[in-house]
């Protein structure tokens, strides 16, 4: 399809396990964002990529969170040693431009992570 896709849609992990969440942005989109949405809250910024460069990771909550986009297209968000507080929906978004804050961001359906 032409939209942003994410996989898996649902992930259940035991506390302490590592997880990897995948995002396929819209083809040709330069900018890619990850957001975390806790239950009942608005999404919060995690990190930003411009092509393969990670230009802002100020929103990552701890050093257990790691994101990459090695070829400037698909991105993976990895969480090591998951904790219960990591339970949330993880949203990926992409936009066409690289420097404009006026661009629309297109969101994927999200991955709902539950840590038991």
């Amino acid at each position: 399809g032409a939209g942003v896709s994410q996989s898996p849609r649902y992930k259940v992990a035991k506390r302490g396990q590592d997880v990897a969440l995948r995002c396929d942005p819209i083809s040709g989109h330069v900018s890619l964002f990850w957001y975390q949405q806790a239950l009942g809250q608005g999404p919060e910024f995690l990190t930003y990529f411009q092509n393969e460069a990670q230009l802002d990771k100020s929103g990552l909550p701890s050093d257990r969170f790691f994101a990459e986009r090695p070829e400037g297209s698909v991105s993976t968000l990895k969480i090591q040693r998951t904790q219960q507080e990591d339970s949330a929906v993880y949203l990926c978004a992409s936009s066409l431009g690289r420097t404009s804050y006026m661009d629309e961001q297109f969101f994927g359906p999200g991955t709902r992570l539950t840590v038991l």
Partner: protein
Amino acid sequence: AQSVTQLDSHVSVSEGTPVLLRCNYSSSYSPSLFWYVQHPNKGLQLLLKYTSAATLVKGINGFEAEFKKSETSFHLTKPSAHMSDAAEYFCVVSDGAGGTSYGKLTFGQGTILTVHP
């Protein structure tokens, strides 16, 4: 720094009556403002955006919003609610401050709109 406050966590209206979802923002620079809608089990969808052109912005599905700089508000309205409008709505701000010209979004807490028959 940028921030958004959505003044109502829940709004309930009857079908065919007007909708008003309130939003106030704070931004150090001239912001871009957005309203996104999130239907259950679906991704966020852009309703409309303001980017320093006309202060009255028209979006999809009959929604519109007015940017009022003096009041730092960006309220979302619709003249007549439809059952399909029931969803969660997010007011969002983005500005070019602090090197975030790439478009880092700051979301409000969301307003859940319920539409009664």
